């Protein structure tokens, strides 16, 4: 990703998102602004249904805001067309979900290879990289297993590896430990923490756990569609 010295790595400008349910409208995000620096690890806290995932989807280019802009490293991704966003996402962003979202019909290593293939990596190179990451997450021996043969914690470790395998600049994690027991969750978090720093990625992690949030550089909360930093209103 091109460097941009002055501006922040991620800029959220007056982001607004409204859900339509029949006649009723629900303001989920109400003019959110904010900046995140390169290499920062940020936690996003809030209650169920407060719009954390929506915000994450907007940043990831999966959803589009009704108003406002998402600028990542100088590119305003909501202004891109569908195809442009897909290519941007494919190249620069890694996703981690609560329910792992591995491709059930691909083996562990194939799941890692898929983003690389989409990005046009050399196959041998991709394989080396994938195996190295699997080594890191401690699942190198399980490379030929299918996701449903792994435990939840193992699946999430694979998901972490997959999110990082194509060296994205930004990793978006949506409740990565929400579906895991405490021990596995801890393991995944440590892994994520270590890898993000090793790979010099920016991390935005949605969680409702203060404990998890405490591991990050900064914490935001979403309340009534607005962003609150460290317990107080910033804007």
């Amino acid at each position, binding site marked *: 990703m091109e460097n941009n010295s002055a501006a922040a790595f991620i800029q959220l400008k007056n982001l607004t998102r409204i859900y339509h349910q029949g006649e009723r409208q629900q303001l989920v995000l109400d003019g959110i602004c904010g900046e995140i620096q390169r290499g920062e690890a940020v936690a996003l806290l809030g209650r169920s249904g407060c719009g954390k995932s929506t915000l994450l989807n907007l940043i*990831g280019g*999966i959803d589009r805001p009704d108003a406002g802009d998402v600028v990542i490293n100088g590119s305003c991704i909501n202004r891109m067309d569908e195809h442009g966003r897909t290519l941007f*996402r494919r190249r620069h962003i890694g996703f981690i979900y609560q329910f792992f979202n591995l491709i*059930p*019909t691909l083996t562990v290593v194939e799941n890692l290879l898929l983003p690389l293939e*989409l990005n046009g990596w050399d196959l041998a190179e991709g394989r080396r990289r994938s195996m190295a990451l699997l080594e890191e997450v401690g699942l190198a021996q399980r490379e030929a297993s299918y996701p449903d043969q792994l435990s939840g914690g193992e699946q999430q470790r694979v998901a972490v590896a997959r999110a990082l395998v194509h060296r994205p600049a930004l990793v978006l994690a*949506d409740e990565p430990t929400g579906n895991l027991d405490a021990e596995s969750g801890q393991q995944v978090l440590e892994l994520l923490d270590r890898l993000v720093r090793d790979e010099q990625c920016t991390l935005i992690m949605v969680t409702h756990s203060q404990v998890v949030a405490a591991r990050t550089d900064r914490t935001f909360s979403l309340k009534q569609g607005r962003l609150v930093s460290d317990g107080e209103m910033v804007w």
Partner: protein
Amino acid sequence: MNLLWRASLRYLGRHPWQMALSILGIALGVAVVVAVDLANESARRAFDLSMQTVTGQATHQIVAGPKGLDENLYVKLRRSGRLPASAPIIEGHLAYAGQTLRLLGIAPFAESRFRDLLSHLPDEAEEGVLRQLMTQPGAVLMSLERAQGFDLSVGQSFELRHSGQKRQAVLAGRFEPPAEQKAVMRDLLVADISTAQELLGRVGWLSRIDLILPDADAAELDAIRELLPPGARLIPAAARGTAMQKMTHAFSINLTAMSLLALVVGLFLIYNTLSFSVLQRRELMGRLRVLGATRSDLFRLVLSEGLLIGTLGTLLGLLLGILLAQELVQLVTQTINDLYFVLTVRELSLTPAGIIKGVLLGVGGSLLAVVVPASEAALSPPRRVQDRSRVETGARRLMQPLAWSGVVLLILAALLLLMSKSLAAGFAALFVLILGFSLLTPLWVSLLCRCGAPLFGALFGSPGRMAVGGVQHSLSRTGVAIAALSIAVATTVGVGVMVESFRTSVQQWLESSLQADIFIAPDAPSGTGYETALNPAVVQIIESLPGVAGIRQSRPVEIQSGDEITRLTALRLPKESYAGMKFLDRPPEMVWPLFDREQAVIISESYAYHHGLHAGESLELETDQGRQPFKIAGVFRDYETGQGVIKMRMSLYRDYWADRSIHSAWLYLEPGVDIDLMMERLYRLVGEQQALHIRTSRILREASIKTFDRTFAITHVLRLLVIGVAFVGILSALMALQLERSRELAVLRAIGFTPRQLWGLVTAQTGFMGLISGLLAIPLGLVLASVLIFVVNRRSFGWSMDVVVSGSVLFEALLLALFAALLAGLYPAWRMSQTPPAQALREE
């Protein structure tokens, strides 16, 4: 291999049932199309080849009326020096050991430029064969295969039958045709023209004279025509083949249309399967989108899956089709022999065109069917969870536009029917109608669900309500399945009503037209009626029988003019038979005097329809005295032939044609004469003279109805196949539906539904779908029947008939739909009730 593809293939591999069913559906559809095409094509090729074998290099032919050409015309032409390349031919059919053999009588010295019939004699043949052929009465050549089959050796005498009379023949030699002509020449007898004239009882006559006039201009042809007596005509050699092909044209179009119907149902199936598989993978598609797969990646992916299924199905379909064609071709041949002319089709001719057609239809149709699900896949948003209610909301939103386009299509179908009078337009309208109807189906289903929910709720409690709700909830899928099933059932209703109406009309017609007591005709193979005749001695005996009140004598002939063959029947009618004719547009007391005294004919409804003729107008016929006009005294109802028939009184026929033969006779007995005794007497008196069919009218009627049923046997088979395809369709749709809902069902199990209750739920749901299909099929079926009766039948054959709708046909349709649906629901229901809830719940 690309990982996306790998994922996709593994997905298909994990759903072998769905995969297998949709492959089977396509395969059945393609198989029916290919089989019908092959059967049609084989019949056509066999016909072409046999025409080619007997026409050879001839470019033109001189033909004449039913009696044929006076043999002296050939001598006159030869001695004029105008036609050095000319060959006389006499041909006809003989029977031996239950087999119909075609006899070609040739003049060997004139032949060499025309046909290479004599080139296929094996080495054992020497000049002795030609000497024998030309000098020995009864000497014939036969194919080696037949001779071996009959266990005849060269030099052996055997007895052939023509027109019920015995003819002595000697096997002069056996020919071995080359592979491509084997099928055609297998049942061919070749003889010198002298022998052929004697065997066929046509001494003094020729069937035709073949000519080679490669670049004759109009003036040259006219100069040749100058030499011909009135009644003899010079025509292009291809004309006869064209004319005969024309007769079967409507028949083969009808078959093709039926087969396309099966394919349409098959396409519904692939659409259903793939859109289901897309739906099922919506979440997965979403994950892929998140990972950066583009829309075109996914579109291509699903398209490729369709291509894969389509290709596999098509390949299997081709194989099945070839197997099926072996059976179908027999049915097709049977029908052609019953209705049109003698044709033997022994070999299935696998033409690349037929195969390519099947492949294009199968693969192309599959791609077409998969475009919608593929677009659906491409439009999958990159969200991690996509609930299906959103899809269903979309489907429900689509319901109205779909219904509207359905209405537009129905209007289009109506317009098509009104604007064009062609048979093709009739079929096109039929298909548009079906398509329009299927677009309306979701709307109907939705309406019926709303009505059905309280009913099912009352009947089965909340599982009943849930069952109906499930149908409506998954409209995008159930709609398609119901449409496919109802089209299939409607087809059977339509065809069933048509056949039944037809059969009833034919039965009534037979009752009224076959009122004579006893029917007498020579014992001859079917399709050869035009060349058989009662022995004059037999006619004499019949005419002098005491106890006979009246005799109806008939002589059916075929008259060729241009590339059309007209069927004409000359009749000597006793007064008793007048009542049997039902005239359509004039009272009989107006028709009969004209028919009896004037230069007038009566024409069948089909003939009138095809030629746009009406009573009071006139038509022209090629007689032995040139083209002559005849008044049309009346139009009568008749189901004998699809291209129609002209009837003329015998005396008028004999004024214009040099033909005195009588083909058959009907006897009207005096009151009180015992039919059985009379039959016995007839056998005693004429049995020596000629092998005859002597039957009572009742038996004849039964035989006619049997022939009718045999003719429609192929229709029944196709109907069953269409249902088969639909059954597979509904099975796969239901399975897909139930599997898709496995989680929901597991929850039900978890909250306390017993397996039996669950089974009931699923069964109620499939039963409901079957019921809806059956209900929707009835109106569509009736519309289809109307189109078949008033458009397709009318345009193909010119027949009108009374529409007969029996409750049983409709009831059967309902039952069929219900049964098919319930049967199809068995496995999914069983599977659902067997799955432990935990497992289903655990499946993510």
